[in-house]
């Protein structure tokens, strides 16, 4: 480990709440550097929320450093079906999280570091923060060609995006967080961030895809740990504080009261999927059954992640109309989720006529509908 153990300790945040300067040899600028000991994306996002809600940032600003095990993080008002390959995520057990700040979708793994700059709302300065990062990188490797664009991206070699930014402004506090690609699995990144879902119509914030490159590819000595330390050093210099990285355990309720509830909320279906702005799925698929191929049209309105309106257009008599309308009736109001749909259709099957052929058709139709989710 690059980090010197002598400089790290566990933080008593209660000190910070009551007496901001207690325990720290700060000067007037005031700053605090914290690093998470957890790689759980929900816990780390919960820490951001906690700091935003509870810490007094008047006298000191905070830099929070964190890394996550594989996860896809979408922006506050985005549509996960539009942004990523949910089937692949489920298959590979990659977590999906929705953050509270705006902006686009990112893929996180341990090679992608996250930096959050907390300030009062008045002192919120995204450009300055990004310039700090660039300065830190250049101090580490002067020959690196990195610069900040007006879209608040950091580009490597003038063409590859290595950092994306998002921000959240509250009443008195604000934060700006950004990623930094050190050594991420680009193959997984590009495959999970490609949505296979067709026919989606939505007002959700779209992501702007970009070619990416790892710092590691430019200079193989640039590890995540090295870069993290360099940024912490630069922050410490600019805030005129000691470069003292405080480790924080996001599961510790004594230091962060209420944190576990925040983490739990971020994992609920209602937050991750339910907060998707209203959208419409209008598509069709082919079903091959016993020497014939039929075209099925599906039109669904999804609000709060639940199917508000559902229309399935089947060739006549392929399924008894009563059965089809039963399916539509039950899908309405149900979550737009393959697992929920599986439970629903298998339960409904119990009260269907016990005809093998009929049941195969039913299962085939339902499998295809689930593919849309």
């Amino acid at each position, binding site marked *: 480990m690059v980090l010197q153990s002598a400089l790290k300790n566990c933080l008593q945040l209660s000190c910070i709440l009551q007496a901001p300067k207690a325990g720290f040899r700060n000067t007037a600028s005031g700053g605090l550097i914290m690093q998470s000991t957890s790689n759980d994306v929900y816990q780390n996002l919960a820490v951001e929320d906690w700091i935003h*809600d*509870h810490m007094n940032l008047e006298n000191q600003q905070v830099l929070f450093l964190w890394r996550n095990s594989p996860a896809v993080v979408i*922006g*506050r*008002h985005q549509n996960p079906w539009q942004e990523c390959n949910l089937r692949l995520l*489920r298959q590979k057990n990659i977590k999906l999280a929705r953050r*509270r*700040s*705006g*902006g*686009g979708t990112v893929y996180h793994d341990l090679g992608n570091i996250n930096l959050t700059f907390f300030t009062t*709302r*008045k002192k*919120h300065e*995204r450009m300055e923060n990004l310039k700090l990062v660039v300065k830190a990188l250049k101090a580490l490797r002067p020959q690196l060609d990195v610069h900040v664009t007006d*879209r*608040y991206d950091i580009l490597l070699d003038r063409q590859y995006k290595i950092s994306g*930014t*998002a*921000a*959240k*402004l*509250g*009443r*008195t506090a604000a934060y700006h967080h950004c990623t930094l690609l050190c050594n991420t699995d680009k193959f997984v990144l590009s495959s999970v961030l490609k949505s296979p879902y067709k026919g989606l119509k939505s*007002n959700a*914030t779209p992501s702007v895809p970009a070619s990416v490159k790892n710092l590691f590819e430019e200079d193989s000595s640039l590890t995540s740990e090295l870069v993290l330390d360099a940024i912490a050093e630069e922050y410490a210099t600019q805030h005129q504080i000691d470069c003292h990285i405080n480790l924080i355990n996001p599961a510790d309720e004594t230091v962060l009261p209420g944190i576990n509830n925040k983490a739990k909320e971020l994992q609920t279906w209602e937050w991750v999927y339910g907060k998707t*702005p209203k959208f419409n799925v209008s598509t069709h698929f082919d079903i091959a059954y016993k020497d014939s191929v039929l075209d099925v049209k599906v039109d669904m309105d999804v609000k709060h992640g*639940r199917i508000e309106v559902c229309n399935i257009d089947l060739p006549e008599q392929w399924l008894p109309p009563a059965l089809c309308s039963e399916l539509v009736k*039950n*899908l*309405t*109001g*149900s*979550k737009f989720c393959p*697992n*929920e*749909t*599986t*439970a*629903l*259709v*298998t*339960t*409904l*099957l*119990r*009260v269907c*006529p*016990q005809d093998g052929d009929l*049941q195969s058709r039913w*299962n085939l139709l*339902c*499998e295809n509908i689930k593919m849309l989710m």
Partner: protein
Amino acid sequence: MAALSAVRSSGRAARRLVCTHRVRSCSSIRFIKSKYVCVFDKSALKFSHQQRLFRTSAASHGQIVQFKLSDIGEGITEVTVKEWYIKEGDSVSQFDSICEVQSDKASVTITSRYDGIIRKLHYSLDEIAYVGKPLVDIEIDASKAVAAAEDVVEAPPMSHEEHTHQEIKGHKTLATPAVRRLAMENNIKLSEIVGTGKDNRILKEDILNYLAKQTGAILPPSPKAEIIPPLPKSESVPAPAKDKARKIPVPVSRPIVFSGKDKTEPITGFHKAMVKTMNAALKIPHFGYCDEVDLTQLVQLREELKPVAQIRGVKLSFMPFFIKAASLGLLQYPILNASLDENCQNVTYKASHNIGVAMDTEQGLIVPNVKNVQVCSVFEIASELNRLQSLGSAGQLGTSDLTGGTFTLSNVGTIGGTYTKPVILPPEVAIGALGKIQVLPRFNGRGEVFKARIMNVSWSADHRIIDGATMARFSNLWKSYLENPASMLLDLK
């Protein structure tokens, strides 16, 4: 923040208002205004104020103030409205979140500067809102103030912080006017209270908790319970004895009322399908048959086999034994593994024993089944159960796992219970529910009392095609395999 608006969205705000007039002097430079404080707070439905409700409802005119979208900073002039946390007719307090707007990559929470009622939303979702233009109209009481109608385009957010903080006795504490009034009436110093709201704001709950601690009383949940006035107005430390010595209840000044509210949700998705299934099950004439099984020998056998299974990577519970014994029983009594058609014209004897195992998951009661138990060994059943259980707890059971069941066992005993009355899952004709294993005294063959491991089983069957005798004999056979596990060896295929 969103939770607050959900609570308020009943639309019955007008009936519940507890209104009070108050002149408030701000330490800020701006203005002195009197505020129309509308506290939509069920816990504040106080008897003494009921009279006021009638009075003020006649005088509910306030002034409509246009709350303009303040400067976001960074030279931004327009944003998109992404989510409303309130709707027209809702009450808001100062600092409550009104909406979420987005500008490029920044998501901004807009909070209210006033206490009042939302009268108009100027934008719908996904519309562009302009800085400096009205965002919402809020009705506040302005019988005295002219200043409220002043141009409220904000200078940099700094001024928010200045005039929104109240200085009380040298401490900066955040609390809405209603909360301050409650504190004042109870002679509580706000500085003594720890706020649990956002930014350490003091909430009504904090005051009530503080009062509860003071009297040492647990506040009664309903108005019918004995009313304990939280704090006598003139004293600060009442001893319990004093309460008794006091005169007959003071004007029920502040009985704390249970603030819960009925919540109605639609039944959707999987639960809706279950309703349909259970209604169909109701049409089946059920009869029940119960018995107790002595599992003393099985318990011992499992202890011996558990490590063997562990080595092979499988967790061995009692269920694989129960399932296998059931399958052996079904070989002798195949009518229990059958299905009746819709018109009760034909019985179909199913060849495969696909034994369903009821699982309690987050989604609800899910019943995946182990296929073809008749050709599986106990170990294979255990292994399959492990797979189904892990998929079940992740909510990821597939269609084939959940369909095709012919007979079901429900081990509710892992949660608790002895005898139950299980409901048959159509299109099956029988189901068994297993209670918990208890250690009970029983007599053995020599007339001695010994410690027996007893489990109760409750069967239900479709009386249209199954009779009591069949069920009883099946149960006896199943029971004999489990009470004497060695006998299973004789009949295993």
